[in-house]
């Protein structure tokens, strides 16, 4: 049974993260654990107090009469019951970003909405706090999609790096349920060559774990080609190594490149070595 953390906003309901977390938990016969990210920290103390004062007269009577934390927990509990998913809510379910990162040592997966924000102004997705979690988490992070019906295709992004192969392996270990799905290894090579890096070794590993594997090596501008490849594939989950010295990590980090996570609607599984 996997330990899947679903990270939620203490103040704003994240239906997408709960939906996808529950889907994965049922698929892998696991339980979801709700962790609520606290908005309050030393950096934004004044801002948080002012924002709460400005929103004091909201019409939501439930929020006005119940503590925020209790409401969040209640919503999560009800959502999991409605989705027929086993769940747990630890006693210390309210966590700062740092506490969450510490807890990822003891988790198999983190599911999070890429739009989850600790700021009061609108941020582009993935937000700063989500990027920080992706960078420092001790387990893979799964960016939840806005909506989905089912996942029937797995796209492994690959550039020959240790990080990208590590991501492929970790996804395979965590979710063997996808071994009969449509599998594609997508190599986006900045140099534009059509050859697959370490083709024999890669294929040997892939064929050991998956029945049928397709290989795609689109040429041209890597960002454009990658986004163009992913956009029509609504039922695909994308796997990426990131935050290593890899091409794909630069796509996530660089705001100039228009991060994949902010452009495509697919769920993205990210881990790094």
């Amino acid at each position, binding site marked *: 049974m996997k*330990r899947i953390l679903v990270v939620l906003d203490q103040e704003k309901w994240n239906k997408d993260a709960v939906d996808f977390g529950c889907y994965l938990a049922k698929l892998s016969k696991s*339980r979801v654990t709700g962790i609520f990210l606290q908005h309050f920290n030393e950096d934004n103390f004044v801002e948080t107090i002012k924002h709460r004062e400005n929103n004091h007269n909201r019409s939501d009577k439930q929020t006005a009469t119940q503590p925020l934390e209790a409401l969040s927990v209640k919503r999560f509990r009800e959502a999991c019951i409605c989705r027929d998913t086993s769940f747990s809510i630890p006693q210390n379910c309210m966590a700062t970003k740092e506490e969450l990162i510490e807890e990822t*040592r*003891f988790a198999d997966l983190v599911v999070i909405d890429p739009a989850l924000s600790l700021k009061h102004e609108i941020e582009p997705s993935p937000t700063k706090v989500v990027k920080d979690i992706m960078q420092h988490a001790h387990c893979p992070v799964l960016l939840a999609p806005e909506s989905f019906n089912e996942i029937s295709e797995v796209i492994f992004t690959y550039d020959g790096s240790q990080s990208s*192969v590590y991501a492929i392996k*970790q996804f395979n270990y965590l979710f063997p349920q996808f071994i009969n799905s449509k599998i594609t290894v997508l190599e986006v090579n900045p140099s534009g060559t059509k050859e697959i890096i*370490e083709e024999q070794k*890669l294929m040997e*590993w892939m064929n050991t774990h998956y029945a049928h594997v397709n290989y795609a090596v689109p040429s041209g501008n890597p960002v454009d080609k990658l986004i163009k490849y992913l956009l029509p594939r609504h039922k695909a989950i994308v796997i990426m190594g990131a935050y290593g010295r890899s091409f794909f990590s630069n796509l996530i980090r660089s705001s100039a490149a228009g991060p994949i996570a902010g452009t495509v609607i697919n769920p993205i599984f990210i881990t790094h070595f």
Partner: protein
Amino acid sequence: MKKVLVVFDGAHFPTTTLDFALKLNEESPILLTGIFLPSVDYAEAMSYYYYGTAVAPLYMDEYEDDVVAIKNNIDEFEDFCRSHHIRYRVHKDIKKKVVKELQSETRYADLLILSSTHFYENLGEMTQEEYLTDTLHKAECPVLLLPADATMPRSVILAYDGSASSMHAIKQFIYLMPQFTDMETLVMYAGDEAEDVPFADLIKEYAAHHFNKLGYYKLTADPKKYFMTWIENKGASLLVSGSFGRSLFSELFHKNFLRDVIKEQKVPIFIAHL
């Protein structure tokens, strides 16, 4: 199915590692890939000399013997796999330096099984230690290090010190060897008697998700002095350890201790590091 590597260095035929791989295959089918390395690291030796051809004649006899030995080993390996119905692959004609080649192979593998006693023992104790340490450092998949007379374990010891490294090793062990999670398992913390076990609630929760028969133990005696004795007394067990990070257990496998650990190793050790 997992892709498991086993290394053949020159004339040495790793019977112990193959027997262990056979037992793993009986639990759950594996793809066993034999990596056939030369008995001398010719590529490494040549790199010490700018005029590489000057050193070539020194190794000509060894090289020619190696070609024959490697061919014999390949034949014997293939016979072994066919007779025991194990899916297998042969990787030969290795031109890179030994450690670099193993690093490259481990990137595309799930597990590497090595004998701590026999791996490049023909090169002498000091060089063997160097090759083993380097391989363990650079491997990009977990390594199962076997002692000379490895038996199939009946219990598991998870070395835990609260570090990300020790948790990484525990997770990789669960993912790669799930058949062992039904065995008697001990989460062992080695640290100061006065200290609390770090993240005690979290390790208990995580371990309970994955293991069926759990116990917890705090090793309070001086671990460097008594660790190997203690583990030997546990019987046929398998030790899981993160290593080469800033952890107490990494000290046990630090270069200064590695020779003693290799000599004294009594149980298989599963090592995975970040």
